[in-house]
C-alpha cells in the first residue's frame, strides 16, 4: 500500500483535512512543475499553489475550488471521484439545492410556508369542521321538514259556516291544490222563508283556500214570487269523509242530462238518461253531481237514503256535492 493511499485513508477516517499534498506528490512523480500545470489547466500559478496547500478559501469560491480539484486530479490521472467525494464531505456540496445550511442562514425557514404540515393539518380540520357543521344544519333542516310536510294533512282549519257554527276541516281540503280535487260546493239554495238575505262569504272564512274559490260572495238570494230565482253559491267546507265509497241511485221521470264525478275529478257517468230509468253509480265521496234538468229527476238516494235538495233552479240545472253538508 503506497504512502498516498495511506494518507488518503487517514483523511477519510478523520475527515478533517483534504489530502492536497497528494497532488504535489503525484505532480512531482510525473515530473511536472507548477507552471506546467497552470498552463495545462489555464489557471494562474497562485491558484495552483493554494490548491496544493489545501487553502481553498483563497480560491474564488467553493464551486470553482471543487472544479479545480476535479480538473487537477484528472490531469494527474488520479481517482477523480474519490477526491470529489472527500471534498464534498469536508466542505459540503457546492450546489444550491442540497445545501440545507444555506437555507437556515438565509432565514427562509422562519416564514411559514404553504406546504407547512401545521397549516396543512389545520386546513384539514377547518374543512372538516365546515363539513360537519353543514351536515348538522342539514340534519336539523331534515328534522324540521316532516313537521311542515305533515301539517297540511293533519292541520285543521277552523271554518265558520254561514249559520255561525264552527267546522273543523282538514286544511288540505280547503286548500285544494287543483281545482278538480278542490271541493267546490256550489249549492243552489232557496231559503224557505223567502226572505232575501245576502251573506258575505267572508263570514265563512277559509283561510288557506285559493282566492279564486273563496272570493265568491256567497249570496243567498231568494224570493217567494220568483222561486228558483235564487242562485246561492255557498262556499262550504267539504265533508270529512273523503275517499270512502258511496253508492248513488237516481231515478228519472223524464229525459235528463246527468254527470257524476268523484272527488278526484274522475268522471263516473256523463250521459243523457231517458225518463223512467235509473242511474246507479258508486264512487269515492264526495261525489259531484250535475243534473241538467231538475224537473225530470225523481229521487236521489245516497247509500239508500233519499237526499233532499233544492229543486228551485231557474235554469233547471242543479249542482250537488254528495254527501251534502248540513
Amino acid at each position: 500500500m503506497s504512502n498516498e493511499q495511506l494518507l488518503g485513508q487517514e483523511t477519510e477516517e478523520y475527515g478533517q483535512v483534504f489530502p492536497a499534498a497528494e497532488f504535489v506528490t503525484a505532480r512531482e512523480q510525473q515530473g511536472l512543475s507548477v507552471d506546467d500545470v497552470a498552463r495545462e489547466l489555464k489557471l494562474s500559478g497562485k491558484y495552483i499553489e493554494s490548491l496544493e496547500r489545501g487553502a481553498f478559501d483563497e480560491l474564488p469560491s467553493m464551486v470553482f475550488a471543487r472544479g479545480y480539484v476535479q480538473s487537477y486530479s484528472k490531469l494527474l490521472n488520479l481517482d477523480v471521484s474519490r477526491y470529489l467525494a472527500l471534498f464534498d464531505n469536508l466542505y459540503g456540496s457546492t450546489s444550491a439545492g442540497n445545501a440545507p445550511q444555506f437555507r437556515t442562514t438565509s432565514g427562509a425557514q422562519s416564514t411559514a410556508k404553504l406546504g407547512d404540515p401545521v397549516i396543512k393539518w389545520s386546513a384539514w380540520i377547518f374543512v372538516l369542521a365546515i363539513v360537519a357543521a353543514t351536515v348538522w344544519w342539514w340534519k336539523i333542516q331534515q328534522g324540521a321538514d316532516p313537521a311542515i310536510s305533515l301539517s297540511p294533512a293533519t292541520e285543521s282549519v277552523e271554518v265558520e259556516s254561514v249559520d255561525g257554527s264552527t267546522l273543523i276541516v282538514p286544511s288540505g281540503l280547503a286548500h285544494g291544490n287543483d281545482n278538480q280535487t278542490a271541493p267546490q260546493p256550489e249549492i243552489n239554495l232557496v231559503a224557505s222563508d223567502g226572505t232575501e238575505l245576502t251573506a258575505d262569504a267572508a263570514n265563512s272564512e277559509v283561510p288557506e283556500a285559493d282566492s279564486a274559490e273563496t272570493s265568491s260572495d256567497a249570496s243567498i238570494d231568494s224570493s217567494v214570487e220568483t222561486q228558483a230565482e235564487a242562485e246561492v253559491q255557498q262556499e262550504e267546507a267539504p265533508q270529512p269523509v273523503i275517499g270512502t265509497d258511496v253508492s248513488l241511485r237516481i231515478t228519472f221521470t223524464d229525459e235528463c242530462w246527468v254527470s257524476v264525478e268523484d272527488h278526484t275529478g274522475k268522471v263516473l257517468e256523463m250521459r243523457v238518461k231517458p225518463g223512467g230509468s235509473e242511474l246507479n253509480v258508486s264512487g269515492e265521496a264526495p261525489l259531484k253531481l250535475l243534473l241538467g234538468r231538475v224537473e225530470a229527476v225523481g229521487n236521489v238516494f245516497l247509500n239508500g237514503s233519499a237526499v233532499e235538495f233544492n229543486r228551485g233552479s231557474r235554469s233547471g240545472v242543479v249542482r250537488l256535492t254528495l254527501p251534502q253538508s248540513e
Partner: protein
Amino acid sequence: MFKKIRGLFSSDLSIDLGTANTLIYVRDKDIVLNEPSVVAIRQSSNGAQKTVAAVGTDAKRMLGRTPGNITAIRPMKDGVIADFHVTEKMLQHFISKVHGNSFLTPSPRVLVCVPCQSTQVERRAIKESAMGAGAREVYLIEEPMAAAIGAGLPVDEANGSMVVDIGGGTTEIAIISLNGIVYAESVRVGGDRFDEGIVTYIRRNYGSLIGDATAERIKQEIGTAYPTAETLEIDVRGRNLAEGIPRSFTLNSNEIMEALQEPLSAIVQSVKSALEQCPPELASDIAERGIVLTGGGALLRNLDKLISEETGLPVIVADDPLTCVARGGGRALELLDKHAFELLTFE
C-alpha cells in the same frame, strides 16, 4: 377561492421543462422527478378520441417502437413548446405524480425555466400550459440564471460568472453579475443535435440506419469531445440501407468525436462570441475563474477540455450538471417571498 384551498395542499415546484428531460424540484425537498419529456398518445380505433397512453420513461421506451395507433412524441422542441396540448397533459401528469395520491387535485405555485432568448409568444405558451396543468401561479426564470444559481455560482457578487448550459434542445450561454444577466445567448444546438450528428455519420460511413435512442446510447457510452489516450468501443446494430437487413458493426470514440464536430463547433463558436461581447472587466473575472458547464451536455466526455483548449480559459463542470437548472429554480423559489424577484421575469 377553491384554488387557494387546494394550494394549501400543494408544494411549490420548480420545473425545468427541457427538450429532453423534465425535472421537478419540490421546495424544501429535492429533485423528485427526472423523466424524459415524451408523451405517448393512443388514438382510438375510430380515430376520434386521443388518450394519453404513457408519459415519461414509459413513453420514451416507446419512441420509434410504436404501432400505428400510438404515437410517441416529444412536445418540446428547441427548448420551446412544439405541441401545446400535449405539453399541458405532460405537465399535469408530472405535477400530480409529484404530489402522490392526493385527495385534492394539486394547485401549486410553479416556477418554470425558459430559454433566455425565447420570444414572448413562447413564454406565454409555457405559462399557459403550466396554468392549464393546474398551477396556481406561474413564474418564469431564465434558464442560464437558474443554472448559475443551481451550480452554486456567486451570482449576487460584483464579479462576472459565465455559465454554459447545454440542454437537449438549446445551449444557453450567459454572463451573470449582480443577480442580472449581462449577456446571454441561446443557440439551438444541444444533445439532440449530437444524436442527429451520430445518426448522420453512421448512415454516411456505414450505410446503416440507427434510431435516436441508439444514437443517444452511443453518445453516452463512448462519446467524447476531445481526443483521449484510450479509445472506447461499442457494438451497434442498425439496418443496412443497401441490404435492408439489420447488421452489427463496431464504433470507436474517435469516430463519434468526428460525428459530433459540427454541433460542438457551433457551441464553441457561440462561447467565443459571448466572450467577445463581454465587457472587459467581466471578461477578466471569467478568465481568472473560468467557465462553468451545466446541463446534460456537460456530461459529454472532455467537453470541458475542448472548450478550455479552444478559449484558453479554465472550464469546470458543475456538480450534478443535469439537475442544476431545476435546483437553481428551486432555490429561487425559496427566496421568492423575499428578494428573488429580481431574478425572475414576469410577463
